[in-house]
């Protein structure tokens, strides 16, 4: 085993799934070897950047890469969307963090992914498939054009239910409709794994509660270090305070206090807005300057 921990986190592949969702493949052979389903990384784009947690969407032990699927929602994720190209590198990436998802002896599992949770639920679906379980995938998208990784999921799922808000493909409705459909067709579901925005995980947990099906959710609160040191990621689970970074990120969805989680995700709303506006303004200036330079150059050529 050789140590290459100071590898510069090169980006070796990028693919855009929509105008806000993009995939990055980052070189980190040691991490690719250590990563397990359910774990996450903390990423810093540049020296002045913030540390953001991102769930590991896939890992390739042969290629030595970690796959991240990112939604551009705030300043950092938009800046990454703009500046991360094949051949560029991240300032820092540390992980794999968090407890790996316990892939138990469940015989029949529903893997639910919505929005930014579609990619992270893939390693779990694959792990369950490899453990011999019957895997039902439920994926939610806004519309048909935004669907990604359908083939990838079909390769590890025995059944795949696509849900779109407008019904342009699959069934019309949210992922909860997909879960209900799976629950109607299968009376013997052992476990549901739901990953996505907090409101989606809350609704998924509510859907399975009447039948008492074990429901695991993956929480993604605001973090700084990701090693249990700051306590910023504390969540309430079954009335107890837990740190998502070292006690999770997977928790029993029936016990998680989602309202508390959603409130804590809004801690820095005002600051996030300031950072985003400031950055957008700087981008607009850069773009305007670029356009001006291009114009000057073409005029010069004339």
């Amino acid at each position, binding site marked *: *085993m050789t*140590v290459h*921990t*100071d590898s510069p986190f090169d980006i070796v592949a990028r693919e855009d799934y929509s105008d806000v969702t993009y995939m990055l493949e980052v070189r980190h052979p*040691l*991490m690719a070897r*250590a990563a397990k389903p359910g*774990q996450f990384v903390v990423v*810093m784009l540049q020296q*002045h*950047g*913030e*540390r953001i947690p991102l769930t590991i969407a896939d890992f390739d032990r042969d290629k030595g890469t970690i796959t991240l699927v990112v939604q551009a929602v705030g*300043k*950092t994720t938009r800046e990454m969307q703009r500046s991360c190209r094949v051949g560029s590198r991240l*300032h*820092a*990436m*540390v*992980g*794999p*963090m968090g*407890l790996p998802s316990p892939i138990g002896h469940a015989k029949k599992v529903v893997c639910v992914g919505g929005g930014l949770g579609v990619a992270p639920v893939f390693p779990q679906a694959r792990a369950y498939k490899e453990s011999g379980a019957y895997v039902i995938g439920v994926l939610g998208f806004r519309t048909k054009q935004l669907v990604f990784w359908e083939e990838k999921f079909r390769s590890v799922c025995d059944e795949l239910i696509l849900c779109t808000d407008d019904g342009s493909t699959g069934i019309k409705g949210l992922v909860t409709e997909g879960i209900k459909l799976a629950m109607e067709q299968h009376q013997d579901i052992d476990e549901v794994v739901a990953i996505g925005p907090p409101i989606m995980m809350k609704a998924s947990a509510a859907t399975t509660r009447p039948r008492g099906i074990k429901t695991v959710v993956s929480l993604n609160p605001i973090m*700084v*270090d*990701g*090693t*249990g*040191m*700051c*306590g*910023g990621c*504390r969540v*309430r689970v079954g009335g107890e*305070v837990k*740190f998502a970074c*070292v*006690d999770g990120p997977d928790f029993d969805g029936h016990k998680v206090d989602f309202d*508390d989680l959603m*409130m*804590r995700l*809004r*801690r*820095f709303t005002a*600051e*996030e807005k*300031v*950072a985003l506006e*400031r950055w957008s303004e700087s981008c607009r200036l850069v773009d305007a300057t670029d356009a001006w330079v291009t114009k000057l150059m073409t005029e010069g050529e004339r």
Partner: protein
Amino acid sequence: MASKKRTIRTIPQERTPAREQPPAERIRNFTEVNCGYLEADALVEAERCLMCDDKPCVPGCPVAINIPEFIRKIGEKDYRGAYDVIAETNLLPAICGRVCPQETQCEVVCTVADTLEPVAIGRLERFVGDRAIAGRWARVPYIEPTGFRVGIVGSGPAGIACAADLAKAGCAVTVFEAFHEPGGVLRYGIPDFRLPNEVIDAEIENLRKLGVRFECNTLVGRLFTIEQMLNEMGFHAVFIGTGAGYPSMMGVPGESLAGVLSANELLTRCNLMRARDFPQYDTPIPLGKQVAVVGAGNTAMDAMRVCLRLGAEKVHCIYRRSRTEAPARVEEVHHAEEEGIEFHWLTAPVEVLDDGKGNVRALRCIKMELGEPDDSGRRRPIPIKGSEFEFVTDQVVFAIGTHANPIIGQTSKLKLNKRGYIEADENLATSIAGVYAGGDIVTGAATVILAMGAGRKAARSIREYLGIRDPSQPYDPGADAVFGIATSERNFGRLRVAATPTMATAAP
């Protein structure tokens, strides 16, 4: 410079004060409070050392710096010489000169202290350390490589002290750090106005010159385990100095509100992530106008003084015991008071109240009185019935201690104690052969210098385990020795070790 013998009557009677930024000014910046000695100050203070024969200060120092000798060199204006004397035993003078509690170590036993204020050894050490940084001095001794590789987990005070000693003993040392910059608590915890980042950078650079490698962004336990370090990665010994750092919360209602955070989070955002320069730096930080900090330890003092500098109008300290029981150093409480922190002794929070929008409106507190001493020997605080009151605040910082970080425990077979800390014997050996641990992860939250002391002690144990002997020390292998080598030593199995590729390449 042959001068007549100094006596208690001939030395300068007053201890030379260190220049400080005035409180009104310093609470608006993150520049160091204590500006240190000018050359003239240092020369006067050096005159105060009696150069006594019994040198009680030397055993008073945890690392036994030859204190009178370096003070003599200062007196001769040979600052480089003074640095070389200190660097023989301590590679981090600029840090230790700032954060060591000299008043309970070298200075308390100073002969001058029998009659007058003791020699300001700490300030003199810092003076030399700062000169060394400015002059980019480094003292790299001749190091004979032993071929042994040692992995150190955590780049805080315990880790770097251990790394320095082992590097000098000829080990190839790699220090692993989970954050993107080395330094551990020195970097994320202690604010710039007490220990500037440039000082940490300079001292770490000196370790690099000794051959120590720093690998940041490496979370040991998760990226690879302690067992893998020994069995797959070719480390002959491992030192764990990961610190305590799992902050305690009180468990009172309202702790989830925006504006309630641990001192660790506040300090990390401000110091390491530079949130104080938001939005030039991306990391935000909650900014309160009326801040309540719960706790009265050194971390609480740091948190309060950081909040002031971030622009809080008023910062309050809430502590359930009285001033006598406060765990912070007297000097820290004094600095906080000077800066206008308001202390509320014998007061405990019961609930954080919200403003209906998820923010903090007030803190409901209860008055306490002191009862009988508890296990810690401090008088136990007892709530006074019916004394609850509301305290208006918009930010609450909890600085009430930490638990053991669980990651190493989750990922290795190391024996832990009931509270989750690593079990280590008096030589800091853990339950796995070749793995040593020290600092907060063994003792629970303590001080920087104790962690450094533990790092050095572990380095001694690791040297012994590897069979690297100090020729100046008598060697007693014990009764079970074979060919004069203790069977507990790694050296005993050297033939076997030498057969591995790492050793073969390192062999002369």
